[in-house]
């Protein structure tokens, strides 16, 4: 992975399709999608439930392999990556934000941030210091030793965002990041995501129904039946 000389294009999909096959039938989740995502842009993926938004996100993250087509991350074809290489890529270069936050309940807020940095090979000391700094920036330092179950929904999502950027990942993938939040908290999260794209040059791809994201998005992609319209 060559991230030393940043290219503006982070993700490139070429004619990507994903078909889920079972014994009796097959489902086309994503069909012939070709597109690029660059640094510094916030792209919104919109579409009804079951339209293929999440499948597209997981294809971009290398969590599943396309049935046809190719996925390039940072200029490299991830289909040629082994599982350990993909795992390293995800730990190092992709930050994830989920609808239900998905913080590890058995770990404290601080440990939730440390663990992703440990996956990326950072030392425990560095990870701890960096996590504390991040928690200060997100005004969560007082919650460092709390377990996620003690946090409000908004606090959980802020921790999840801090976790997503803990490794300074150039690509942030967010799946319905505001869906479980109240209006005000959701708005705050949208602003943070926008700042990540504009001030920190991250490529932020958000799958969402939240229309408030529209005005912050550089591009809005509508997906329906696995096809980008």
């Amino acid at each position, binding site marked *: 992975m060559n991230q030393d000389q940043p290219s503006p294009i982070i993700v490139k999909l070429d004619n990507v399709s994903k078909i889920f096959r079972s014994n009796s039938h097959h489902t086309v989740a994503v069909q012939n999608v070709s597109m690029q995502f660059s640094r510094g842009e916030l792209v919104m993926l919109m579409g009804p439930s079951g339209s293929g938004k999440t499948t597209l996100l*997981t294809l971009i993250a290398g969590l599943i392999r396309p049935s046809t087509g190719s996925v390039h991350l940072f200029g490299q074809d991830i289909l040629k990556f082994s599982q350990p290489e993909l795992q390293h890529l*995800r730990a190092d270069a992709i930050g994830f934000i*989920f609808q239900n936050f*998905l913080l590890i309940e058995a770990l404290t807020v601080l440990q939730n941030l440390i*663990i992703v940095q440990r996956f990326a090979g950072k030392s425990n000391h560095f990870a701890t210091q960096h996590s504390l700094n991040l928690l200060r920036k997100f005004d969560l330092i007082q919650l460092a030793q709390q377990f996620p179950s003690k946090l409000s929904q908004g606090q959980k999502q802020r921790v999840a965002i801090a976790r997503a950027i803990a490794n300074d990942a150039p690509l942030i993938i967010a799946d319905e990041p505001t869906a479980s939040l109240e209006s005000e908290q959701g708005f705050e999260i949208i602003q943070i995501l926008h700042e990540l794209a504009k001030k920190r040059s991250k490529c932020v791809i958000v799958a969402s129904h939240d229309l408030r994201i529209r005005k912050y998005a550089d591009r809005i992609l509508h997906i329906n039946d696995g096809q980008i319209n």
Partner: protein
Amino acid sequence: MIPKKNCVIQIQDDTLTIVGLSDGTNALVIQYAFATLKQVQSLIGFPNIVTCFLIKIKEGFHPDSVTRTIKDELPDLEVYDQKTFLQNNIREMETGFLPFLYTVAIIGMIVLTTILSLLLSINILEQRKDYAVLKILGSSKKLLWRLILDQSMIIIGTSLILAFLLFFPLTLLIEHIYPEISTKTSLIQIIIVTLITGLMGILSAIISIRKIRKIYPMEAFA
């Protein structure tokens, strides 16, 4: 009834007094009790048949010389000193009763390993979303396996500490209630039990780890 020194016991029509408790003569399947020749003959009901005599050597005589003398005088008799007698008992235990206990222990090990692997598997399934998230975030297989192994070792370690904490007071209690039962334990036995239990923990973790392979990162998005 708990046998104690000076206790009076009734066997058939005879009243006997316990004058002492021998150590190492209780082989569970073969238990020895010693009484005077007259009493034994009376109890058995065959006045002319005796299976064994217990001989107490007077001070100043050496057991080896007494053994030799008896063998010379009565060549058809088997004569054992105390040490040989106890060794025979132990051998009898090892070939007769202990294999049965070993079988029970092996069955116990299989059952406990199964229970532990089930506990770990249930725990994995309960937290499958966490494992899916860890996979997405870039956790290595090695780390996930270590998590399971650590959980198994914590259960095994806690169980062993609890077992040892209970074992010694319980053996003292058993010896107090049933003094005829010997509950001797050696350090080697404790080490062997600890090692075998540790192996059970490792085996349970290996069995449960298969569950992690079947957790797909996509599950976190559901």
